[in-house]
């Protein structure tokens, strides 16, 4: 059981290191970095590599934004398997709605509760 914590720490950390290198070495803006990682996640799922990574690293693979691309692709492919080409579009948010819905709900609640502060 302990090993899942180590692997999640290391794998999650390494994905972030890739992000940092994209920002510092490739000089990408944060937005471009995140977009690249999301696209990478969905491609990795397409070739079937991301699911084993989740099995290996648990939250280390599901918490980084790459899992967002993976989950979208996974939903689309699962639905396509059942319903053919139409499923590609309809299945997209089947599995990944939680991230977006949580962001929307907590975004609005955050706006109700807080004001931004210009401190260091």
């Amino acid at each position, binding site marked *: 059981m302990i090993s899942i914590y180590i692997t999640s720490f290391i794998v999650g950390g390494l994905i972030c290191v890739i992000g940092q290198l994209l*920002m510092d070495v490739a000089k990408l803006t*944060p937005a471009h970095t995140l977009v690249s990682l999301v696209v990478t996640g969905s491609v990795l799922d397409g070739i079937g590599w991301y699911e084993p990574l989740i099995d290996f690293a648990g939250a280390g693979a599901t918490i980084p934004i790459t899992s967002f691309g993976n989950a979208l692709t996974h939903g689309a492919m699962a639905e396509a398997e059942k319903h053919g080409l139409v499923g590609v579009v309809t299945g997209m948010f089947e599995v990944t709605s939680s991230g977006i819905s949580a962001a929307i709900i907590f975004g609005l609640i955050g706006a109700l509760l*807080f004001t*931004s*502060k*210009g*401190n*260091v």
Partner: protein
Amino acid sequence: MIRGLLTFQSKPSIYATGVTAGPLEKKKSVFAPLFDKVYEDERCDLPTNEDGHKQLMYDAVLIALSKAKKQPEKIDFFLTGDLVNQMTPSNFTAQALAIPYIGLFSACATSVSSMITAALLADAKQANWIMAGSSSQHNAIERQFRYPLEYGSQKGATAQWTVTAAGAVLIGQHKVDTPVIDCATVGKVIDMGMTDPLNMGSAMAPAASDTLMNHLTGHGRTIDDYDTIITGDLGSNGFKIFKALANENGLPHTKNFRDAGEEFYGNDPSFKAGASGSGCSAAVFLSDVYQKMLTREYKRVLLLATGALLSPLSFQQGDTIPCIAHAIELSMNEVTAE
């Protein structure tokens, strides 16, 4: 042939200044004791950042007026600017003051460009009293040019911190024993192909260098004529490059060079390369430099404010950052015998 040179024969005078700043500046700025008014709330207890921004400028003007014992009705022109889209804080200030108004935009160089315009109006005898100045408010500028305030982005060592501050200066006809405006140089827009909006100092340094050289050659000055040559908001990185460029241009030493942006937060590393914003140069020029002129610690100074003329749109469309620098020369007469 050097263009953009201005000499003011009548030597218009600076009668009074007013400087306001926000709570973070009160806590962190080394110039805080010199400011006329500091607020406890970053929005000046008003609902929005832009309202607070307007209040900063408005109060700075009223402070300058009260020091000169003048009413807004006596002022002929109000020349000011800021960094918010369409300069609404300045516009609303002008509306509240009801002084004939021209909004000026030279980004962070507005402090000097407004003083140059004011000096021209006074020198041409078109006006007796002109209020100039500029302001910036951290929250309002950050959300417009960069990210939401609470958004986490890692700032590099070259990033600068937009100050919450405003400076207003009352300019009128020549009077002895006041700092007077001798001459000025209007800069050209210089673009050295820099694209990083988090490294504005190095984008602005060539503009500052160009205007400095034009001013020195055009008006026949050397750097030793000045007690200080103070740039607006190059920040530590831009200032370093500016000094290197000066050496390259044959200026032997840079010991009397200062940079308001670098000094503003006293090299506090959490502010990275230092301060920026149109309020930065205005606040330092009109508090520290002005007061040192009144005590005759400085007898001749060159204010060299720099501005990066970019917008979030131009940056996103892949344009480089065009920059400008304006110079204005102030002097104080020797102590007059009573």
